[in-house]
């Protein structure tokens, strides 16, 4: 076999056993031959390296694109999150409608236990006028009379009814202030103040506030207990 063929077969790893003997002999005895083998062996390694580097560059290019696809994906994720937040906002909004619904279902101005109004009666004192208006659901007039009454004599019970009127007139914040003020002292109206305060919180969509009050009410009183438990379940 000629030297070139020997070297070519050596490099392509296709030397027969017989040729291998010839090759080894030449490597040991022919320095020009050995030099040529080393050169071509190195050339093969260099070309392989060149190929690797070229492919590596291509792959790195793909990777860069993957990353830009990824950042596009990230952008999509961000957009999706934004949309979901929008939905949860909608849900939240819905949720506030739910508390509103719970409020409406459960709110009923506390019945008049202060001033019995008898039909056909023509009493003209402020208290009777106030509770007449209250019972006939003329809440604007009732509010006016309750304010007059409270000017004359601050009274927690009258304030409690005034707060009920305020709830009915959608002046929830003002009502809350009164219930809270009433709760600073302990009396027989406590449970009722709590109940209406909880409803006011519901109205304000303060679920945590409402739950806190309802839980307190659940453990301290049997007033409206069925409703209290129902609301607690709904709010959980």
């Amino acid at each position, binding site marked *: 076999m000629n030297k070139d063929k020997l070297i070519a077969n050596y*490099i*392509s790893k296709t030397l027969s056993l017989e040729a291998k003997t010839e090759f080894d002999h030449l490597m040991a005895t022919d320095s020009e031959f050995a030099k040529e083998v080393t*050169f*071509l062996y*190195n*050339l*093969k*390694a*260099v*070309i*392989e*390296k*060149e*190929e*690797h580097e*070229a*492919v*590596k560059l*291509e*792959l*790195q290019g*793909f*990777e860069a694109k*993957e990353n830009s696809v990824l950042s596009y994906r990230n952008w999509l994720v961000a957009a999706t999150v934004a949309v979901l937040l929008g939905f949860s906002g909608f849900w939240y909004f819905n949720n506030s409608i739910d508390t509103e619904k719970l409020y409406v279902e459960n709110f009923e101005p506390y019945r008049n236990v202060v001033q019995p109004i008898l039909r056909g009666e023509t009493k003209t004192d402020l208290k009777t006028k106030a509770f007449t208006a209250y019972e006939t659901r003329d809440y604007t007039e009732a509010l006016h009379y309750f304010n007059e009454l409270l000017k004359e004599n601050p009274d927690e019970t009258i304030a409690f009814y005034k707060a009920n009127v305020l709830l009915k007139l959608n002046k929830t914040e003002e009502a809350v202030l009164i219930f809270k003020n009433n709760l600073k002292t302990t009396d027989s109206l406590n449970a009722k103040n709590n109940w209406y305060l909880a409803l006011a919180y519901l109205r304000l969509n303060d679920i945590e506030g409402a739950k806190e009050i309802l839980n307190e009410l659940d453990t301290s009183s049997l007033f409206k207990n069925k409703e209290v438990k129902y609301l607690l379940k709904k709010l959980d």
Partner: protein
Amino acid sequence: MTDNAVIEALKNRDQNALKQIYSNNRLAFISFAKKYPITEEDVIDIYQDAIIALRDNAVNGTIDNLKSELKTYLFSIGKYMIYNKVKQQKKMHLVEDSSRFINDEGSLNFNINTNALTNEQKQLQAAFKTLGQKCKAVLTLFYYRGFNLEEIMKELNYTNKDVVKSQKSRCIKSLKTMIFKR
């Protein structure tokens, strides 16, 4: 594209095939590599090297009659490379030896050449880079792809083998002139 078609395309460094195989297996490989203590940057680097090694094995004919899926083959190369990387980092004490590590998916045969070039080879590489496109093409087909003169003639549209042969000789001569002139 079937595995065989991909292997053929890889031999020809078909960019679409390369891209396809890169994208199709990338995420699976990254998640596969998560159980090993190497950074994602290293994982990507290894993944690319594994594909390069896959191509080497496609080119030299090792996987012409591949018994397993190409993906399995690629992953076993990658796994072997990860193993070497981890061993380098010495972050993990591996009880199993490397032969078991690579053979647990069946005896897949692959050659990996990630050896750094010697100084002598680096000089030769610098010289090779200065060659014209024709020389690079002929020498690459001959020494990397393993084409014979006739195949090169067809591939590069030469009129006859002898032209290829003299072209190849001229290229080698100019390389030798460049590195042996000192």
